[in-house]
């Protein structure tokens, strides 16, 4: 039986009910606290490096080469996965899939818990997923799994993620990679 998250099968948006809002500009959110971006980056790197089956879920905004920024981010995310020793499972299509997805190779925003349960993922980063689908997926993951979720968002972040870092563009990802390398060295990983 899969482990449920702290919200269990709550029928309401738990993070919002708990008074959590997305972080203001220049800040990031760690669980219930607003912290400096660098503090959040260090913690995210630590969680990813120390959790079982840490995985990055790249979404369509970075999977496809539709802009120069997307191409740059793709290179950086690949590097990020290597630094964090994380697997990558793509969220390439938002459409619901019947009878079910193959959780080995994909994650779908309409039932993201299946991929997390199947692969026993304990920490993950959502990146390049359009905000409305990231919100849906993160709510489900928060309710139905015990996975630590990170929303790396190019816009204003996601209150349903355990950690969210906002305004993440290519140069910010490069900075995160450098911080992750330092954390990795500190942890001796």
């Amino acid at each position: 039986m899969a482990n449920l998250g702290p919200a269990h099968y709550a029928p309401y948006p738990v993070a919002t009910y708990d008074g959590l809002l997305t972080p203001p500009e220049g800040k990031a959110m760690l669980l219930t606290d607003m912290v400096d971006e660098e503090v959040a980056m260090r913690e995210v790197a630590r969680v990813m490096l120390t959790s079982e089956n840490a995985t990055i879920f790249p979404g369509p905004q970075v999977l496809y080469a539709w802009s120069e920024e997307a191409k740059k981010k793709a290179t950086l995310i690949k590097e990020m996965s290597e630094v964090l020793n994380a697997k990558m499972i793509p969220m390439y299509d938002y459409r619901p899939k019947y009878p079910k997805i193959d959780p080995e190779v994909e994650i779908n925003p309409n039932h993201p818990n299946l991929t997390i349960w199947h692969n026993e993922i304990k920490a993950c980063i959502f990146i390049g997923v359009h905000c409305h689908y990231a919100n849906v997926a993160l709510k489900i993951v928060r309710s139905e799994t015990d996975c630590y979720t990170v929303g790396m968002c190019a816009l204003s972040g996601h209150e349903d993620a355990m950690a969210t870092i906002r305004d993440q563009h290519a140069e910010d990802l490069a900075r995160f990679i450098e911080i992750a390398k330092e954390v990795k060295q500190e942890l001796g990983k």
Partner: protein
Amino acid sequence: MSVDIYKINPEFRDIMPKDILDLEDNATWGQEKRTIQDLTDKKELLEEHSLCAGCPEAAALRYVLTALPKPEDTIIVNSTGCTSLMFPHIALHTVHSLFGNQNAVASGIKRALEWRFPDKVKDVMVLAGDGATIDIGLDYTLQSFFRQEKITTICFDNEVYANTGGQESGSTPKGHVFKMAPKGKVFDKVPMWELAVTSGCQYSIKLTASAPKAVARAVREAVYIARELGPTYIHLYTPCILEIGLSASEGLWEMKEQDKDRFVSFKYVSPEAEALLKERKKEGLL
């Protein structure tokens, strides 16, 4: 929308499933000469759907999608009904409007796109059932024809409000009995294809979805005319096999029967549209 949106970043090719990699090489995006022959092996627009097994509407929607000249620059406005259950599965820009409002919404979208992208061709298509087109949305449908909006309207006519339990619609033939219309329809079926002509449509056609090529041809003709001249209308019979008591394999048979009866071919093309179609044919687009 850029066709580049389907090019996979090389860094992720190793984690993408084969069928998505195949789409990059074999999809028909950006090819004006897409044809109905693509139906069997091209699945970028619609792979799976959630309608009943054997539903003629599902088949008809596939024919419509394969016929779109520029799917990457097409927006479909739909309304509540069985088709709206399929739209979440379609890789196109679709807008689900309030029931009956679809032609008004499409008019606004078309005008906004013309303003925003004056140098690009953007096709706007309405796809709704008979209840939305002919009953509740009749006002909006006809008003868009009066205003000569450059949109294509497709009515999937199953002659009944199917997914609410079988109430009669304006499109139900006289005398027909349904579960929620036990006394039988008192009035005649509304001849929407004729109303479309008198309301100013440049092109109006009535047919069933029994012949994929005929449906695809009608869609392409209607889209090309709507781009240049004004409103076009396609009235397509897509029976609800459940409501009329047929099995999954009998939908095609029912449509073939109606080819000779209520849906005997009707086609109106305005003289200007006729000339335009000849040009498109010369260009090899039809």
